[in-house]
């Protein structure tokens, strides 16, 4: 079928389990072609659907957990301002219900109408960017997303764009060169026209109503308003709430859990809207890390530099801030940073909402203060100035890695005296946790390097870290103590080069 044209829509409604009348199929665009599909199990991934049902085998499975990028596809959505936004995603852990109303573009769908390779593909050929070729479609699609968004791809941006794509053959240099060669190329007319048509098609398929798909006893509910979502969650307390599926996707692909019913946050428009209320920044459930990065970065540069190393573009494009909190991972990077920023979490049950400090949301490993039928409805962060907020992430690899130790620190200094301190750690306990003894050792002291070094000794009272494949207990404790010292160095005005920041490390090159 010739893509990129309008087709009549055939909207089919079904009676949902609870008797409501809902739309019973997904509508989306695949490589320019409108698709309406039903009879899809709620746990089916986009990659499985593409490869197994559509014969689109260009997207590869390299890991099935969103860590290698070989499955990268691009999702295009309409922004509130009418522009198209193109996001690279790991299709291996993206669930089919999550592409409702979107355009999916795969490596098979980007060449010119006359069959010529897309500039991103041409560049990869011209610069010898492929060897075995298995990772290549993923690299092409990551570049393609950046290209479509009109990013001026300098070296640093390309590195960030490609941090979630692993290549075992090339050593990356030719791929980076291919990406850089795109910087000075303009988009051809055919592609602009294609985007215009795509924009129209997206309007054409958008229908504001609740959707539910099901097959093989696996249901995926897609509420479209906040109240509908809250009601759905309250009525189905056993259902799993899914946001970006960057974690839940792995429950399916890696742990092979049976997921009989999932309810998705992402179709609710107001769940995407970041707002400011009474000097507090409110991040509702569907705000992705990538979306949050820009806003958080404006207020807290330290959190931005952390988020740049959070997962990868693909992970940040899917994963959400609220989801990261709700899952309560002890090694999550964001909770310590948000605790240090004195964030709160809002929990909603039907129409009732409560708010609690983020740090008290985490109770013990795998257990959060969230009742059945409740969901994390927002993260609130006070927009107070936090000039001393800093984040430190230690991992084996700089990019796309999980912390062995993560520290976010935020002190208040008044007339040279530390009057308040938050030191929040990840990787040091079963939950993201503050180092209260160490904090107390700092409070009341002069803001001098020696006092940080002395306070660091208290960490041993705060934590008994575990040993695992990411690091030994001794290393974690030693590194955590050193991070407190490092914070002290920086707070007392000693400029340090963060090796994690490749651009900053350039100044060291002789």
């Amino acid at each position, binding site marked *: 079928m010739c893509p990129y044209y309008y087709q009549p829509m055939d909207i089919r409604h079904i009676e949902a389990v609870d008797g409501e009348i809902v739309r019973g199929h997904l509508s989306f665009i695949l490589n320019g072609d409108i698709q309406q599909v039903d009879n899809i199990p709620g746990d089916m991934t986009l990659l499985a659907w593409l490869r197994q049902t559509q014969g689109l085998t260009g997207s590869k*499975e390299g890991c099935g957990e969103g860590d290698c990028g070989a499955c990268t596809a691009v999702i295009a959505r309409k922004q509130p301002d009418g522009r198209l936004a193109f996001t690279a995603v790991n299709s291996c852990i993206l669930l089919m219900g999550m592409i409702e109303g979107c355009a999916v573009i795969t490596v098979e769908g980007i060449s010119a109408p006359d069959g010529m390779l897309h500039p991103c593909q041409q560049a*990869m050929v011209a610069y*010898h960017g492929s060897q075995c070729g298995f990772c290549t479609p993923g690299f092409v699609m990551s570049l393609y997303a950046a290209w479509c968004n009109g990013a001026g791809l300098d070296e640093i941006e390309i590195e960030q764009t490609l941090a979630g794509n*692993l290549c*075992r053959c090339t050593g990356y240099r030719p791929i980076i060169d291919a990406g850089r060669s795109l910087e000075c190329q303009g988009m051809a007319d055919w592609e602009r026209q294609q985007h215009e048509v795509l924009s129209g098609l997206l309007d054409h398929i958008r229908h504001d109503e609740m959707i539910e798909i099901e097959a093989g006893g696996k249901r995926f509910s897609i509420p479209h308003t906040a109240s509908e979502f809250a009601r759905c969650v309250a009525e189905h307390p056993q259902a799993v709430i899914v946001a970006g599926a960057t974690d839940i996707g792995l429950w399916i692909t890696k742990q092979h859990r049976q997921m009989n019913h999932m309810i998705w946050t992402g179709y609710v428009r107001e769940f995407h809207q970041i707002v400011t209320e009474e000097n507090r920044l409110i991040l509702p459930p569907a705000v992705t890390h990538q979306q949050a990065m820009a806003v958080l970065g404006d207020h807290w540069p330290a959190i931005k530099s952390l988020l740049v190393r959070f997962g990868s573009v693909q992970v940040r494009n899917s994963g959400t801030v609220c989801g990261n909190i709700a899952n309560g991972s002890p090694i999550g990077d964001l909770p310590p940073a948000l605790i240090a920023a004195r964030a709160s979490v809002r929990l909603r049950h039907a129409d009732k909402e409560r708010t609690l400090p983020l740090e008290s949301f985490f109770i013990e490993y795998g257990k959060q203060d969230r009742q059945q039928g409740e969901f994390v409805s927002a993260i609130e962060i006070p927009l107070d100035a936090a000039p001393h907020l800093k984040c430190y992430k230690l991992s084996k690899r700089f990019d796309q890695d999980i912390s062995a130790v993560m520290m976010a620190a935020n002190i208040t200094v008044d007339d040279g005296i530390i009057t308040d301190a938050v030191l929040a750690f990840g990787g040091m306990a079963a939950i993201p946790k503050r180092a209260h003894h160490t904090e107390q050792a700092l409070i009341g002291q002069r803001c001098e390097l020696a006092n940080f070094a002395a306070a660091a000794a208290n960490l041993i009272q705060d934590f008994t870290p575990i040993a695992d494949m990411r690091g030994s207990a001794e290393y974690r404790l030693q*590194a955590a103590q050193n991070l407190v010292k*490092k914070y002290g160095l920086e707070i007392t005005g000693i400029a340090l080069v963060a090796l994690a920041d490749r651009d900053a490390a350039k100044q060291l090159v002789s």
Partner: protein
Amino acid sequence: MQDAQGHIRQPVAHDSAVGHVSGTAKYIDDLAMPANTLELLIAQSPHAHARILDMDLDAVRAADGVVKVLSAQDIPGINDCSPLAGDDPVFAEDIVSYAGQSIFAIAATDMASARAALAHARINYEPLPAILTIDEAMAAGSFLGPAAVIETGMVDDALADSLHRLDGEIVIGGQEHFYLESQAAYAIAGEGNDIIVHCSTQHPSEIQHKIAETLGLANHDVTVITRRMGGGFGGKESQGNLPAIIAALAARLTGRPAKIIYDRDDDFRLTGKRHDFKIGYQVGFDQTGRINAVIFDQAMRCGMSWDLSEAIAARAMCHADNAYHIEHMRITSHRCKTHTQSNTAFRGFGGPQGMVGIERVIDAVAHHLGMDPLDVRKRNFYPHKLAAQHGTTPYGQQVHDCILQDIISELEHTSDYKKRRNEIEAFNADQGVIRRGIALTPVKFGISFNTSFLNQAGALIHIYSDGSVHLNHGGTEMGQGLNIKIAQIVAHEFQIPLRVVKITATSTGKVPNTSATAASSGTDLNGMAAQRAAQTLKQRMAEFLAQQAGIDPVQVSFADNQVIVGTDRRGFADAVRQCYLGRVSLSATGFYATPKIHWDKSRLAGRPFYYYAYGAACSEVAVDMLTGESRILRTDILHDVGKSLNPAIDIGQIEGGFVQGAGWLTTEELVWGEDGTLLTHAPSTYKIPACSDRPIIFNVRLFEQGENSEETIHRSKAVGEPPLMLGISVFLALSDAIGASADGAIYPALDAPATPERLLMRATALGESIG
């Protein structure tokens, strides 16, 4: 001139590049398969070492979607998938020997059914004591065979007589291949005993032979086809046997097509990796840094069976000298048997570990004498190829092609080594949080399989009556650009455009009895075989056309897509047509066996290598002394590929090899639990380099004067493995950086991989305090 594009020495793109970027290049799981194709899942042992008391799989058989359950009793032939030794069962019987081992397989209509059925297996085990590490194996005397020794000179006397002596040890971690395409095979049973298997393998012939053996068939019943692999790196030399055998068995027993695609975690848990080593050393040297004697004790973790460990041990021993002529040397190899994955080939094949050993020794010697390690290296190189007298390796091969002096002096100059070392010393003198380090290290790598008989290859070329050329050879494409190089060789031979030469899938039905595409030998062997096939065809054409024109065949030549017969020129296709009408055979095989090599496996002596490949890298790093984080600031590489057949492909191998080698020695860490289960079994926990890990400045050049002194294909040199060992420069630069922390008083004695944890803990142990 247009038609000459794509001939040898030109930077032609990979033949599948367009297929790669458009997603049309097919890998095993992308092949169109009939709807009744079965999917296979291997049930794995949860124990490292245990006796299987009883196994009840009835409920698995009865589960929805399950078509067949395969276990040891279902194998009509021999229950073995090992490459050589006969010690790797396809399905464990009685005893399981590592956590992750294959016990049985489920053939189901779909993977979800297979996974669901797996939970229904009832297996009772009696756990047995497991030996997991090198230390445990050494203590328990658990070896695959007696220790192997290579010895030259009067080692003990020379050591005793040396002015200075040092001893120490280094632990070197293993490495997961992490080819992006996991192990994969797809089998179709045909009529009679016929079976066709598409497989992602470096060794189609071995898979053919092993399938015949396990299924009780003759080799001629089995055809194995490999179009391409999504990466191999040695991990698909023997490790493809198991999945291919299981797929073939399922297809044979059910009559339905069957595919097996390892899930990434299963791939990690099932397959062998690069051997981890513990190398003890004693070295004797003089005041100038000249090394007189070295004793190495190489203990390597082989895992539960031999796999290729005997040959890997031999290569590790044969590279324990790297580039250095050491008169008195003893290398002892302990092949430790453990209850872990059976370790296997990985780019370098033991060479890298052997080389890390001697480079560590050099570094320690330099530290002891307060010398620049580069000066110690230079002091000990094998004599230059133009020297009056050449050096002999501990295994008895004369090194008559050494060009390291040239490479090192050029690289030292272009990398500005001396000046930067001084700058770094000044920088580190401030004792700041960031320390820098630099190292310039050489590579000398022996080219040829050290098992001599493997050094043979075949090719098959058809010319069709329209003048198009069908090229086939015994090598396999894993991304290294073997096919494009051989197509260039053939296009060059016929003087026809590259597009006229069609590259086709490797098939045991076309070229038989092939060796693995391994040991960097793919182009050397198969390129030569293809050239000979082309030459045979040219000769036949020339004889016929000369006869027709009444001239001598020497007056026939091929140029510019034409055949010149005396004074007459005609297009290549016309000439082919004329030969066809004249009933000339337009199909020919070519065969090549590497000359001059011999190896006495019992004495570990001979000339195992046809020649050596050389290269050097200078790397500079920075280490954060508070966190152990590190970054490669700059790497300069000068590498010898002889006369390059395709400079773009060769540069790609060098850069990729370097980054892979650096990854092995820095971020890539395999961790097993105390129960012997592999804890790092996915990219979430096992960290290969990402794009920002490549050096900030990365200068890679081919050694322009390079030319193979042996008569290899167009005087090129093998390039697959040697560059991996350029990554050793990063490891030693890291050691240099943390060594600067304790005023140089104590040698850092860093183990690999140099993760942030190892760097921080070593730096801390060296007595460093900051702030």
